[in-house]
């Protein structure tokens, strides 16, 4: 990834530089997050009009499971993409971590041990990716296509066409438990990780370094940013979040197959890009990713209530991705054309 945009293309500048900035209010109103929030509200209203079952506290609570696990990974992925890298192996890490937990459960490891094994596997996979990218300086997009096959491939070697089940009773809490009333443990964890990552990205030195690397890795190096170390930590974080997501998903499903979480890497990337994070790196917010998670969750849940099959929903997700990115570009073009 970093190689792809280290040379500057003579294309039009990514953003036109205005003569003066608008007022703070107009800038906030024009921001991606507000636009996306508007989309979320429209989808929410459309859903409640389309189905009488939508506005029900328990139904809405169920809907959150559509996105909480993916969103937890998306927060870490957002940082990674802002820094100009990508990790396509996240879903495969879930498969491997889940397989490791399943194998441990078969020999009678208790709930705390299983959680540690799941998170540990995630960290180990993240460290492996991080090492390949930051120590051997390989392009992350190909490396993680390779590790994606490798991690899930190990699951297939271990499990073949079989499945692991028989998790201890206490283990079910992470994916099926509720904190208070309709608020699930997963939803709580989603809010907590969102807050942690928002602080990490927007209020710490580390977060600034992530932005600097994504905007100009070359300049970052000259400014004394430890580029390799930051990238390694980002891959480690993505592995960690994939491990946590694996714990939640395995607990929720109560079983492990090697095909678990198949195709999630694309949904996670979609969520991040939809959240306004530039796929070229250097720009993005956690708030955007949070709203994007809600948008995707609402769309899939609303369509589900209307009995739309899952694969047709994916058409909407794909369209949502392309249209939300294309619309501002088209709008800017029209604006420029009418001015000249």
């Amino acid at each position, binding site marked *: 990834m970093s190689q*792809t945009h280290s*040379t500057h293309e003579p294309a039009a500048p990514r953003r036109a530089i205005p003569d003066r900035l608008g007022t703070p209010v107009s800038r906030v109103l024009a921001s991606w997050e507000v636009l996306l929030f508007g989309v979320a509200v429209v989808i929410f209203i459309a859903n409640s009009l389309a189905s009488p079952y939508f506005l029900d506290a328990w139904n809405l609570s169920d809907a959150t499971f559509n996105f909480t696990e993916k969103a937890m990974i998306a927060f870490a992925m957002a940082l990674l993409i802002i820094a100009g890298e990508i990790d396509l192996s996240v879903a495969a890490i879930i498969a491997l971590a889940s397989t490791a937990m399943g194998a441990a459960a078969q020999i009678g490891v208790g709930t705390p041990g299983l959680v540690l094994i799941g998170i540990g596997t995630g960290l180990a996979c993240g460290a492996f990716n991080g090492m390949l990218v930051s120590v051997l300086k390989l392009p992350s997009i190909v490396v993680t296509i390779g590790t994606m*096959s490798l991690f899930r491939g190990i699951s297939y070697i271990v499990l073949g066409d079989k499945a692991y089940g028989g998790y201890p009773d206490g283990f079910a809490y992470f994916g099926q438990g509720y904190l208070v009333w309709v608020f699930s443990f997963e939803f709580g964890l989603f809010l907590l990780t969102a807050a942690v990552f928002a602080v990490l990205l927007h209020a710490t030195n580390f977060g600034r370094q992530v932005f600097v690397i994504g905007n100009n890795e070359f300049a970052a190096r000259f400014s004394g940013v430890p580029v390799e170390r930051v990238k390694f930590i980002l891959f480690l974080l993505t592995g960690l979040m994939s491990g946590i997501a694996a714990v939640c998903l395995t607990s929720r499903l109560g079983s492990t197959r090697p095909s678990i979480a198949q195709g999630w890497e694309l949904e996670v990337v979609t969520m991040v890009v939809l959240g306004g994070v530039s796929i070229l790196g250097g720009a993005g917010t956690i708030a955007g990713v949070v709203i994007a998670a809600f948008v995707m969750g609402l769309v899939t849940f609303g369509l589900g209530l209307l009995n739309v099959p899952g694969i047709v929903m994916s058409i909407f997700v794909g369209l949502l991705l392309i249209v939300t990115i294309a619309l501002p570009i088209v709008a800017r073009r029209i604006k420029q054309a009418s001015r000249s």
Partner: protein
Amino acid sequence: MTKLLKSRELLLSGIIILMIAGFATRAEGFAEPGNLANIFNDTSILIMLALAQMTVILTKSIDLSVAANLAFTGMAVAMTNAAFPDLPLVALIVMALGIGAFLGSINGFLVWVLQIPPIVVTLGTLTIYRGMAFVLSGGSWVNAHQMTPTFLNVPRTVLLGLPVLSWVAILVVIGMGFLLTRTPFGRSAYASGGNPVAAVYAGIDIGRTRFFAFVLSGAMAGLCSYLWVSRYAVAYVDIANGFELDSVAACVIGGISIAGGIGSVAGALLGSLFLGVIKNALPVIGISPFAQMAISGIVIILAVVFNARAEAKKGRIILRDRASAEVTA
């Protein structure tokens, strides 16, 4: 540069020959011409898709929607064949090429005119095209008995010792070799990926070159869709699921730089054959087919490490090396 590429492809050929020889000691008859021809035939579709993928990668883009395009077009062709058995095969193939090229041109349009990054565009169209295959078929399958005998038999007809499918792949390899090294489009593809700034100064329209690379990739997916459906005698929504990554993997193994501008037809061909030989050897030497995924993962990672070392020898990175040396000093 040419010397380096040549030695690289020689090396890869050497590895493939060694692999075949090694497998032959474990499984009798593995290295016999008949079996090798079978492996080539089995790898034909991957070779064609890898060549199309390579053209896109050369221009500093990536097409993740090829397999979804193949699934949709294959479904459309199979359903047309089932509904109108009297339609000549040529019409169906033209239709497959047309639909494939059209889907590819949508990718190309979004990349060229709206300048959305290719990985985002094709990530989106990947889910859209496969979803459309479901909408088109309603989730049902088109089975062998619904297809006409001509539709099923042409790719497996043996001509001069090889099935037509293999011959199509050979023609595509030759055609792509000509297109990439002997035509303005081919040279533009290399230039717009190798050094976009210089390409623009040389009067090359990068966006247009990318557009045509995507159209080519789509048309190839269309052609392969007919071959795939006919070869496996079935069409359903999930055919070729994940095959887009196989095509990228074949390119990476073949030494095509994911950063664009570097790669050869021979490399993509050898990269595909490498994967094809492994895929065909595993069951023969008694390794569970479930191990195939992990093995191709390891192969991809090793190939990337190897590529990075080969590319580091180029002059272009001298500046960056010096810069990073100064930083550490």
